[in-house]
């Protein structure tokens, strides 16, 4: 039996993309899988009694070494901000290519804490900073220094000791360009070095909290229980900076979604599922109840989604336990069709992720297909005809063409780059200034304009001549030829509508990172947790690949 890939017109809608969850394809999980047999070390630990100073961690295999250099600084409470406009942080980090020497550390000590206004070199690969969750950090120090483990309810509610507020890579602020390292086998997957940074930062937070507690009360202090450490991750506050990325990297977006869709297709095409695999799926599904009920947020929008998810997962569990037989042919296809018919978008995508758990053999080759050589598809095939372009648009953007851009509500928002922080923002074009400097992120509107122009142009005109007369449409002509080859390269929705929820775009990207417990703080930013439940570096050589569904166990 052959199952069709799911329709991009459904999957690439913002509400669906905003319902995606982490899976075995997620970058933090593929990072752990790739680096599990690397040698982990803490190479330098030079903190004062208050936990300020320098720490270096590394992963090493043969001649290759990646070193995380951490700079922990004293800041005042009123200087601590998760917003991108902050200028000081509790700690700043960079991932260095190789073993840093003293000169490197001195150079980086001056630059890394400055973040966006500092300058890095081609020897550095990623850059980040993080702030303490002061309430949790102080509570943990206080308890450990008195010989006690911290209150688990508080830890479970927050989920981390530190929150990062940005992780930069790929040439930002002088960091190494991707072309310098792209041929290395171990980073043949998107954002792998960003994941390494976050993972090692998590270990730094445990080492720092233990160190501060020990110095506070050397005789009585105990270390944070490794089981508790394991259930802590790294928080992250994410704003609109991520949103344009998925519009500006269409072939990369396609490759992420295509891998997910191919995985689902292959799993649905399995005729007979063995007992071990069906049991693993059922076990992860049962454990999901714990994951979902421990998902904290004050966002009404997200609370409703969580409530619906919980109800639907319970409904599915009941269906599997009372009515469903895994010995039937193509059981995952039957289950998927049931889920698609009976449950909400949040649940459909949750179950799609869950179905991947038993199938490393299907997933691992797909992980290797998630990068993209974007420049290969940049040049417009200008020898093609206007008629061909029109047909591509009508076939690939059919839903978008039905949007009426004469109506104000359909073009109410505009995307721009803020002058003070060079960060993407979204605003109301009828209330705010600056829409003349709009970024080219209103793809639906521009595709519709292109289509209207094509309708009144001679069919056999070649694209080079069309572009001579219409240079303002060049960016969308390029995109239309890309989507012809890459069906999941485009968000099939209007990104400037009155009803656009920008965090749907963030959630899509964060789900591929492997984030858990999305906690929207508005429609424009959210908090998440990464690596919660993940093995500690010392456990990597032999860890349970399904750790995501075994939180708090």
């Amino acid at each position: 039996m052959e199952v069709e890939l799911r329709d991009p017109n459904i999957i690439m809608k913002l509400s669906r993309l905003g319902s995606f969850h982490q899976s075995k394809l997620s970058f933090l999980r593929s990072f752990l899988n790739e680096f599990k047999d690397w040698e982990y070390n803490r190479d330098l630990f030079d903190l004062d009694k208050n936990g300020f100073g320098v720490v270096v961690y590394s992963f090493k295999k043969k001649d290759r070494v990646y070193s995380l250099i951490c700079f922990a600084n004293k800041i005042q409470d009123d200087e601590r901000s998760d917003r991108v406009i902050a200028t000081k942080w509790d700690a700043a980090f960079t991932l260095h290519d190789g073993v840093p020497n003293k000169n490197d550390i001195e150079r980086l000590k001056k630059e890394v804490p400055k973040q966006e206004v500092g300058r890095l070199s081609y020897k550095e690969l990623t850059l980040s900073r993080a702030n303490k969750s002061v309430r949790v950090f102080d509570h943990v120090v206080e308890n450990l220094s008195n010989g006690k483990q911290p209150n688990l309810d508080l830890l479970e509610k927050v989920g981390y000791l530190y929150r990062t507020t940005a992780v930069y890579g790929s040439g930002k602020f002088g960091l190494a360009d991707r072309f310098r390292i792209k041929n290395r086998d171990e980073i043949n997957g998107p954002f792998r070095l960003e994941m390494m940074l976050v993972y090692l930062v998590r270990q730094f937070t445990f080492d720092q909290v233990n160190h501060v507690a020990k110095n506070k009360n050397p005789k009585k202090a105990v270390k944070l229980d490794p089981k508790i450490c394991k259930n802590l991750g790294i928080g992250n506050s994410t704003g609109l900076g991520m949103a344009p990325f998925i519009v500006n990297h269409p072939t990369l977006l396609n490759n992420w979604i295509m891998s997910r869709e191919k995985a689902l297709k292959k799993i649905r095409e399995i005729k007979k599922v063995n007992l071990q695999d069906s049991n693993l799926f059922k076990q992860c599904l049962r454990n999901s109840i714990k994951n979902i009920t421990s998902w904290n947020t004050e966002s009404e929008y997200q609370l409703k989604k969580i409530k619906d998810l919980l109800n639907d997962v319970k409904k599915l569990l009941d269906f599997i336990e009372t009515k469903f037989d895994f010995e039937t042919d193509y059981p995952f296809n039957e289950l998927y069709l049931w889920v698609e018919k009976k449950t909400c978008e949040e649940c459909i995508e949750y179950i799609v992720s869950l179905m991947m758990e038993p199938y490393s053999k299907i997933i691992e080759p797909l992980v290797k297909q998630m990068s993209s050589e974007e420049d290969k598809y940049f040049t417009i095939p200008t020898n093609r005809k206007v008629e061909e372009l029109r047909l591509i648009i009508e076939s690939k953007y059919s839903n978008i063409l039905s949007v009426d851009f004469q109506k104000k509500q359909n073009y109410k928002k505009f995307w721009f780059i803020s002058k003070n922080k060079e960060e993407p923002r979204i605003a109301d074009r009828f209330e705010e200034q600056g829409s003349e400097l709009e970024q080219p992120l209103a793809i639906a509107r521009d595709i519709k304009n292109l289509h209207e122009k094509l309708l009144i142009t001679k069919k056999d005109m070649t694209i080079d001549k069309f572009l001579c007369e219409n240079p303002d449409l060049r960016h969308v002509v390029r995109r239309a030829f890309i989507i012809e080859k890459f069906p999941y390269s485009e968000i099939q929705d209007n990104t400037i509508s009155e009803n656009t929820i920008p965090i749907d775009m963030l959630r899509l990207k964060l789900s591929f990172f492997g984030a858990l417990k999305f906690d929207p703080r508005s429609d424009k930013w959210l908090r998440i947790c990464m690596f919660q439940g993940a093995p500690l570096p010392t456990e990597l050589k032999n860890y349970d690949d399904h750790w995501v569904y075994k939180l708090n166990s």
Partner: protein
Amino acid sequence: MKSLSEIETTSKRATRAAGFSWGVSEEVGKCIRLLELFGLPGIKNLNSYFNEKKLNNFEDLKLINKENQPQKNTFCPINLGVSFLDQIRTLETFKHCSFKNIAYPILFLPFLSRASEVIGKKIIFNFDKNLFLLNFNTSISSNFTQEQCPLIAKDVEINFLDNKDNFSELEWINLYKLSEETFVEETDSLKQGAAGAGLTDND
């Protein structure tokens, strides 16, 4: 040192700010990245060009012919470059084309380099005794040695090179003969046991 990623992004934004469309700005971002990657002064010349653009009217050329001349001023290297890249399959059939007065020819160069990759042919860009050979967008060779690139290319010749060897048949035969000295002469017994031995081609 600025990364190529920073160079591309900043060039793209600056081009947009200078009045070009987003699509053209994306092309310029890629082209300046390419120039800097090849060690040519992209940022420097883009900066100068945009400064001069505020004062001078550069001319566009929508459809390129075999011979091209601006009406009054000089050609804008960006719009000319985009047109050249877009029309490369037509231009290739000319085998040769010429231009008068292209402003900032160094900015025109990366478009030719990309065009060379599109058609799979080397392109020679020759102006005022400066010669550039564009090799399928993998490298640029040149006799150009001056610190400051000319601000105008007055007489420009562009040639599309047919894909042919740039050595003689005799030179090839000599080298091939030498390479044969790494081969081993097969004995009859080796021939009898080799792949396909014992079969006829008509079976």
